[in-house]
């Protein structure tokens, strides 16, 4: 009798644990970001943005169609290294058994990592990497919220031609300084195409390996090439070095274009007024006049101490897109989710803070409207302000072209 009682008690205990566990339903996502190494600052931003979104979603009752399942994120460090990205993706799929992965920061990591997910039939949702080919391989399970690098370049060249015509300034010689990674090479290929279309010749073609020991040789080559405009594709550390050296050597240009890479808080913090007149392109900026944008940015700023970068915003909105897709299908089965993603137009909060609406095409690519930003001195502080197209520009702000020479600043 005693034995039976003990046996029953054990059964009851096991059952209650199972029931308790069932009540705490979770859906686990995997995430790959550079959390150490040179790209760690931006990786950490991406993590912060996701954490903020997940906190909000879970606090609001999780995914209701899945019994209020809470979102749990496994963060894995890519170190910015494609091989590490691939093995971490593999580990998330085979060991942690996740069915949805988000990330990466670098295109070079996203390109091979998404291929792994595709092979396993796992959804890989990329809010940030912009290398065009990521969504041009006919993959079923890969989605991208970011614009393609080629779109950024296309819009920048259009802006350049338009502005040069309006001001009657000739722009003939362009230089390209780019990191020899998927991101840099993708931008370079697009620049070749669009600059040729605009009849601007490329007189400096300067690829470099990330982690420059000294930017002086490159800056010297920029001076010698006597350029009208420079396009620069690289990440924070090299950006800081390059602009500091351009300032030191007083190399003047009519325009300096980044390709979506100039708004990192660390770049702004370190370069300050040296960034003035630099032009960049983005789908989103903290000063953008969109519903909800200011509030989300303010919350992020209060929490983490700095403005959201476009990348952080994309990561944040990306979490809500995934949440809503799960809400609609009620499972975390990738095959169901990809159908929803392909056929849904995401409107309202928080998507409208980023774009009018978000929808993905057949290839999993979101349609994105871009704006031109220029770093300008607003009340003694360098800020990226929306300057083009003119009708969405910040009120009372006009772009400055050509750049003011270093000697006159």
């Amino acid at each position, binding site marked *: 009798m005693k034995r039976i009682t003990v046996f029953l008690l054990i059964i009851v205990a096991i059952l209650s644990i199972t029931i308790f566990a069932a009540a705490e339903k979770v859906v686990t996502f995997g995430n790959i970001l550079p959390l150490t*190494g*040179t790209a760690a600052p931006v990786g950490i931003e991406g993590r912060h943005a996701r954490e903020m979104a997940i906190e909000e979603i879970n606090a609001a009752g999780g995914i209701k169609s899945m019994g209020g399942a809470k979102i749990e994120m496994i963060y894995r460090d890519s170190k910015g290294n494609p091989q590490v990205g691939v093995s971490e993706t593999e580990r998330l799929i085979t060991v942690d058994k996740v069915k949805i992965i988000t990330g990466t920061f670098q295109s070079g990591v996203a390109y091979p990592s998404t291929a792994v997910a595709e092979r396993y039939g796992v959804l890989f949702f990329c809010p940030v990497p912009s290398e065009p080919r990521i969504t041009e391989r006919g993959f079923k399970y890969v989605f991208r919220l970011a614009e393609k690098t080629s779109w950024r370049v296309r819009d920048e060249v259009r802006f350049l031609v338009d502005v040069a015509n309006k001001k009657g300034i000739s722009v003939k010689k362009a230089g390209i300084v780019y990191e020899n990674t998927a991101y840099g090479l993708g931008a370079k290929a697009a620049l070749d195409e669009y600059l040729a279309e605009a009849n601007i010749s490329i007189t400096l073609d300067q690829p470099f*390996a990330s982690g420059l020991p000294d930017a002086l*040789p490159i800056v*010297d080559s920029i001076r010698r090439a006597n350029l009208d405009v420079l396009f620069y594709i690289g990440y924070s550390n090299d950006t800081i070095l390059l602009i*500091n050296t351009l300032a030191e*050597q007083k190399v003047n240009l009519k325009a300096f274009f980044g390709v979506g890479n100039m708004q990192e808080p660390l770049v702004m913090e370190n370069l300050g007024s040296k960034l003035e007149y630099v032009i960049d392109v983005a789908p989103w900026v903290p000063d953008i006049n969109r519903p909800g944008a200011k509030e989300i940015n303010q919350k992020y700023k209060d929490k983490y101490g700095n403005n959201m970068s476009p990348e952080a915003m994309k990561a944040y909105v990306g979490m809500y897109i995934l949440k809503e897709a799960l809400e609609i299908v009620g499972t975390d089965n990738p095959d169901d989710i990809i159908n929803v993603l392909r056929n849904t137009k995401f409107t309202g909060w928080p998507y409208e803070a980023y774009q009018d609406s978000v929808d993905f095409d057949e290839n999993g690519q979101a349609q994105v409207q871009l704006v031109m930003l220029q770093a300008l001195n607003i009340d003694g502080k360098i800020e990226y302000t929306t300057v083009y197209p003119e009708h969405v520009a910040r009120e009372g702000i006009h772009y400055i072209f050509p750049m003011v020479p270093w000697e006159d600043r």
Partner: protein
Amino acid sequence: MVAYLQAIFNGITMGSIYGLLALGLTLVFGIIRVINFAHGSLISLAMIVTFFWITRITSNFILSILLTIPIVFFIGYVIQFGLINPVFKKVKEREPISVLLLTAGLSYLLDNLMQIIYGPFFRTVNTPITGLTWKIGSFIISVPRFTGMIVSISMFIFIWFLLKYTYFGKSIRAVGQDREAARLMGISPLHTYAITFALGATLTGIGASILTSFYYVHPTVGSNVFGIKAFIIVVLGGLGSIPGALLGGIIVGIIESLATQYFSSIAATLLVFLIFLLILYIKPSGLLGSKFEW
């Protein structure tokens, strides 16, 4: 012509700084016969210490370099005295492989420790020489790099003088040549090792401090960017050779500067390694390398 001279001059100034960053490595190898894999971490460490002084304690750049020196000296001394010497005492071989592994492990430890304490951020400091240039016609001299060159060459002369002419320097060389014979002459090899390592760390620290005037500070920049460069330079110039480090540094600097002008930055990196292999093929001991330098 001016552009060509400008590129060579830029190469020499930056190359001299590379040389100074490699000097500590070659000194430690020449005397202690230890290949210090933690060399790059010491570069980052010194940069971070300088950054700390200049942003928190004093805005005086020279003072912050002077304040960095005792710290890197002390850390260098502790590494040799507390970590490497005990291995030497236990192992009979002249160049134990375990020391190699120890320094490699130490490098990981230091890099990660710095990431935890300092954070993974890039930061730049404003020193009185940051962003300054002198113009002579169309020729431009970058003041921070030029200052680096002057400091570097002074340090090489100082070390050469120290080792060649002082009693202290002679004792260091004696230990480098024959540990047992030096001991018979009344020199304590382990103590000398510790001082030498500390001296190497100090020289590296001075180079790293100068670097902060135009380069960003980051916990892994020493290992990833300058540490590797220092190894190439030291092997190129001759392991253990003091003038070899300066020569190697200048050669690397000039190749980088010229090749970036006439080919590209990527080609420059490639060319450095090509010439490195070529020189090793022709002279395996490095340009100025010999069994006993002094």
